């Protein structure tokens, strides 16, 4: 055994699109301890609720993170609707779920691309991102934005998607599904991918539960938890929803879980489009939250459970808004999975938890 050395990793590092700093304590080629340091993207936006009213804050909320921007505006809107007891029409709820699932597809494809880049398969990275642009085209056609959509308001959604357009989206997704299978084939059946990922960064079910892991990271360690099971909004009307699990707990399992979730999302959209009601898209609520009213909410983001808490103070501003995002939960598991790994596997393990640092630090 050699002497322990500390290798700084990040905040600016080729494999990381985002700034995260790790001190890796290594002995020879083996990582024995990992000390994360965060805070490079902290903006302090929870405190902005004091300056922006509840309707303006929705635009701040969706800029918590550009990848799951729709999810954050949705989670925030649902929480404030609970706070004020606002009823949202069914059609608006369905549309929200459709956009949210489209975001999940785009987020997972984005991640699969970055993951491929981390293990050095650049052609696969390019193909994932090429396919992802087709989802962004749907966003652009339905909301006008590519990554920041601004489609939700408190009480409903800003824009309707006409039925004919919804069917066209389903057709498009079916087309994407074919191409997606080809990409998945490379991930799931290519031995070179498997040789980089199988058995790397193992996290057992007990560890995942003890560290409160969430999202695909936890589901790859066989933790059967997915907030969509709770059936809020449009999810409640799904015939049958089962979280996708794997009991292998390594990087490869995380890839497989996410790969299957993309197809699951396509199925969800298809099912909801086939039974979407026509009861209007709701309108912006005129209420203000009561003094001392409190509400909380969980939402399954592409990266896992995100928790929202809001407290009113009788004015059009909120007294407190709090989010706990999936990555801040998952960092503990990442540190655990990194311990004992080889130095060359560090980028893969970091990427397979799908870190979203700007969510995490807000």
């Amino acid at each position: 055994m050699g002497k322990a050395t500390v290798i700084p990793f990040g905040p600016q590092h080729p494999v990381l699109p985002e700034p995260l700093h790790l001190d890796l304590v290594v002995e020879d080629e083996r990582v024995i301890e990992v000390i994360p340091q965060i805070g490079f993207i902290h903006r302090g936006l929870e405190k902005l609720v004091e300056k922006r009213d509840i309707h303006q804050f929705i635009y701040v909320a969706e800029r918590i993170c550009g990848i799951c921007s729709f999810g954050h505006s949705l989670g925030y809107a649902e929480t404030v609707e609970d706070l004020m007891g606002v009823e949202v029409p069914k059609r608006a709820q369905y549309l929200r779920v459709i956009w949210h699932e489209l975001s999940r597809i785009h987020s997972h494809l984005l991640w699969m691309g970055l993951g491929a880049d981390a293990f050095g398969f650049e052609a696969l990275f390019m193909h994932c991102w090429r396919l992802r642009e087709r989802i962004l085209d749907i966003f652009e056609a339905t909301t006008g934005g590519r990554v920041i959509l601004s489609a939700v308001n408190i009480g409903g959604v800003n824009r309707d998607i006409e039925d004919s357009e919804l069917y066209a989206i389903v057709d498009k997704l079916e087309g994407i599904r074919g191409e997606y299978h080809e990409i998945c084939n490379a991930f799931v059946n290519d031995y070179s991918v498997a040789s980089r990922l199988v058995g790397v960064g193992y996290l057992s079910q007990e560890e995942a539960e003890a560290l409160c892991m969430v999202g695909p990271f936890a589901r790859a360690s066989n933790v059967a938890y997915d907030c969509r099971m709770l059936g809020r909004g449009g999810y409640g009307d799904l015939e049958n929803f089962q979280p996708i699990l794997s009991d292998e707990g390594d990087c490869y399992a995380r890839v497989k879980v996410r790969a299957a979730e993309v197809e699951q999302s396509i199925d969800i959209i298809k099912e909801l489009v086939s039974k979407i009601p026509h009861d209007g898209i709701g309108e912006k609520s005129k209420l203000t939250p009561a003094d001392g009213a409190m509400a909380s909410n969980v939402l399954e983001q592409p990266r896992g459970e995100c928790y929202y808490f809001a407290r009113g103070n009788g004015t059009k501003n909120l007294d407190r808004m709090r989010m706990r995002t999936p990555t801040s939960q998952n960092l503990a598991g990442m540190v655990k999975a990194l311990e004992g790994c080889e130095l060359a596997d560090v980028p893969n393990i970091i990427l397979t938890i799908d870190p979203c640092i700007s969510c995490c630090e807000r």
Partner: protein
Amino acid sequence: MSSVSKSPWVIHYDGSSCNGCDIEVLAALTPLYDVERFGIINTGNPKHADIFLVTGSVNEQNISVIKEIYDQMVEPKVVVACGVCACSGGIFHDCYNVIGGVDKAIPVDVYAPGCAVRPEAIIDAVVQGIGILEEKSAALAAAKKKGA
């Protein structure tokens, strides 16, 4: 020097952005927009880079990192601020931890606005940056001649 300006390499750093602009910077590099066909390559090494793409605003924690990357880049170099956050602080301008746009830390040559900035706007800004790069390298060469 024209060889440099015909295929500039870029380096990207995420200040305190929301990721929206980062994924658009990456989207500009991938097949639909594909700036690699112009010889523009994304590198992780500041010493190899000619153009510095910064997304997101400057805060207490990252100001030193941004300055450090800028200092490590060799002359001539161009800085492009991508997105309104990088231009001015944007929607977060009055958050307590946000100092302001990237120009609070390092000199910025081109501003590419938008929230999120569109890949087309990034490509435009980079093309504009190439012009500035050329001017800067001509100025450097002239100064060298004078010195010699």
